[in-house]
């Protein structure tokens, strides 16, 4: 194998590894999204059952999401008494590393509405 072929195969090898690693890394946001929804679900059922979320509960939701390395978290709560509409909207950015250390940021959203089953 001459030097020309060696360089060619090295480039091909790096390209293959980069493509495979990149495809693998693209699965990460999906897993984080599922966990994000699970955390939001927990606070959402609280909202439905009570009609409201306390400041401490909203802080706790923020902390749990921050611990998952989510960025730019915004929480919006529509409160309501029995029979009124309640809604929880959470926006955040899922940040993860791509090949060659490139950072990727994907926005994600939780948006659920229902009718309150508890008094405010």
């Amino acid at each position, binding site marked *: 194998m001459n030097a020309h072929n060696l360089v060619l195969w090295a480039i091909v090898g790096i390209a293959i590894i980069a493509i*495979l690693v990149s495809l693998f890394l693209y699965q990460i946001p999906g897993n984080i999204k599922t966990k994000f929804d699970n955390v939001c679900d927990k606070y959402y059922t609280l909202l439905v059952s009570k009609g409201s979320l306390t400041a401490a509960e909203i802080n706790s939701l923020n902390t749990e999401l921050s611990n998952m390395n989510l960025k730019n978290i915004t929480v919006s709560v529509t409160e309501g008494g029995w029979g009124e509409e309640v809604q929880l909207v959470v926006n955040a950015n899922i940040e993860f590393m791509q090949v060659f250390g490139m950072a990727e940021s994907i926005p994600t959203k939780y948006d659920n509405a229902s009718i309150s089953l508890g008094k405010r």
Partner: protein
Amino acid sequence: MTTHTWLILLFFFLIAVVIVWVFILDYQALVIVRERLETNMLAAGWAGFSSLSLEEIATRKDINILDMRNIILDKIVSEQTTRDYVIKNLKLFSDGRASANSYIADKARPVDIDVVIYNYNDVGNPYPYTSIVITVRVPFIMGPGGILKIYGEKTVVANYDTFLIQSQKE
């Protein structure tokens, strides 16, 4: 074989890998959509629980009997409320097609929604409590260029048990 032949074979191999991976990623997206559907459908189910049949509840004579404390829903109102909130949470148009804001990728084909209400004392109720059973059939596109068009079905049961499970998620 010459280097060029190997490179050509490698090129086709990589194309095959990418095509297979697109299907794998689409399948993962399908799993995520199913999870999100569950969340949205259960929320719609809780909305349905606000439609109590006060007339029937008022006919109860002995509240010391545990069964008598179960919820009785107005089936017609509850079904409509549940259906309305499935449409709202999935961000659908009234004809069932997904709007631009919906996470359902296939905007052309409609989502089918089926809601069944079981009061606790209904004959044939498969659950120990009053329950709202929601089934949706969601259009989904898979593969490079959306070559494969399928429908995915998801059923959730909103009742006392599922409320407890959802409130204790980690």
